[in-house]
Every structure is written in structure tokens, then in C-alpha cells.
């Protein structure tokens, strides 16, 4: 597919805050990968970053037992792909999470904290905004 500089293409997926909906991200990313002609390895990385961001929202944004939505938008541009994950849950800026010490020895290595680290490692830019009672996490990958 040849895209001009001005060409953009958008896809959207809306999930409930139910962890069993996470597998739907794989098909969503697969469709985007096809559209943008991404290789399988990059598609897997994007799937992973998206899963980590969405899992955070599903597990922590809304009070336990209450229903809430996670809105996922993908914008494909020439040279980049942008994912915008938004929710109406409590304010939470994942970019403020301290990075894990990935060089720690086994004894000192803490279990957990890897989700947002993976998002930061895979994506080229990760920006959080709180606006009109909603959290927006915008993650961009240069392609």
C-alpha cells in the first residue's frame, strides 16, 4: 500500500473493563498491521504495548465490580502509528510510574512493574493527558 504524506487511516475498538476482552486486541492489531504493511514482529510488539496499557485501565481505572469502558483508537499515518487509549476512570498517569530496575539480581528483582516499562520501551513516545474527566494515553510508534 502506498500512502501519501497526508493520508491517515483510523480504527477503533471499545472494550468493557473485563480482562477476558484482552484477546480482542490481537485481532485489532492484526488488522492494523495488514493495513500498514507491518511485519509480524512489530505487530507483536504493538500488541504487547497495547495490552499493557489497556490491562492497566481494566484492572485499576474503575472501582471493582463497576462497569466501565476502554476506548482504543489507532491512527495510521505515513511514518507512524498512534494509539490513543482513553477511559473515564480515576485520574492515573502511568508515565509517572518509576521504572523497574531491570539489571537487579534475582534476589533483588521485584515482581511486577513491567507493564508500563514495556510500553515505554516499545513505543517512541508516550504522553498522558487528563481532560474533561477522562484519561488519555497517546502512544506513538515510528514505522
Amino acid at each position, binding site marked *: 500500500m502506498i500512502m501519501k504524506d497526508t493520508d491517515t487511516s483510523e480504527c477503533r475498538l471499545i472494550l468493557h473493563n473485563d*480482562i*477476558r476482552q*484482552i*484477546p480482542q486486541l*490481537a485481532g485489532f492489531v492484526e488488522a492494523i498491521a495488514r493495513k500498514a504493511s507491518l511485519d*509480524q*514482529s512489530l505487530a*507483536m*510488539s504493538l*500488541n*504487547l504495548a497495547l*495490552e*499493557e496499557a489497556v*490491562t492497566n485501565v481494566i484492572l485499576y481505572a474503575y472501582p471493582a465490580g463497576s462497569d466501565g469502558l476502554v476506548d482504543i483508537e489507532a491512527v495510521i499515518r505515513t511514518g507512524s502509528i498512534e494509539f490513543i487509549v482513553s477511559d473515564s476512570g480515576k485520574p492515573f498517569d502511568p508515565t509517572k510510574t518509576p521504572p*523497574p530496575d*531491570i*539489571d*537487579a539480581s*534475582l*534476589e533483588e*528483582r521485584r*515482581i*511486577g512493574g*513491567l*507493564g508500563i*516499562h*514495556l510500553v515505554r*520501551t*516499545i513505543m517512541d513516545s508516550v504522553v498522558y493527558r487528563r481532560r474533561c474527566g477522562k484519561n488519555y494515553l497517546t502512544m506513538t510508534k515510528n514505522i
Partner: protein
Amino acid sequence: MELNINKTDDVTTVKFIGRLDTPSAQEITKDLEPVMNDASGTIVMDCSELTYISSSGLRIFLSLRKAAATKGGNVIVRSISDDVRQVFMMTGFLNLFQIEA
């Protein structure tokens, strides 16, 4: 995700088949409890058919590794794909595990 656990005298082989995403990790945590509780021998994590892993899956790997270290056991990660290896690399897991082809 399908999980095959096979125990012989001193070696427990855990074979992961499919995608280890967050819901799969939650599902298999209970199945892995016996392996976690009896981590004094060698545990082989057969990843030849593991196609994807996220942080919830990594958490399981690290928990097993820590349980084995406490109980004098050993964890070998066998036959990881390039994609899964990449995730291990990004998270410093290559240094924590004995990786075999």
C-alpha cells in the same frame, strides 16, 4: 493457552502452547501452584510453542524462578522464539534465566 505439565523423577516440564496474555496468565496460575510449591528440582519451561508473552506471563516466570531459588531448584527456559526472546531482553529476563536452544 494450553499448559502441559509433565513430571518425571527430578524434572518437571511445563509446556506453554499459544499466547500467554493477561487472561491466560490468570487462568494458568492455579495450574502452576503444584509446580511452584515443589520447586526444589529442575523445572523446564518449554516455550517452543509459546507465541506471545505479556507482563502477566513474565510475572509467572519470575515467581517460579524465585520459588526455585528459595528451594534450591533450577529453572531452564527452553526453545524461546525470537519474539519472546525480544520481550525477555527488554525486561532484563535474559539475565535471570538459564536459556537453552
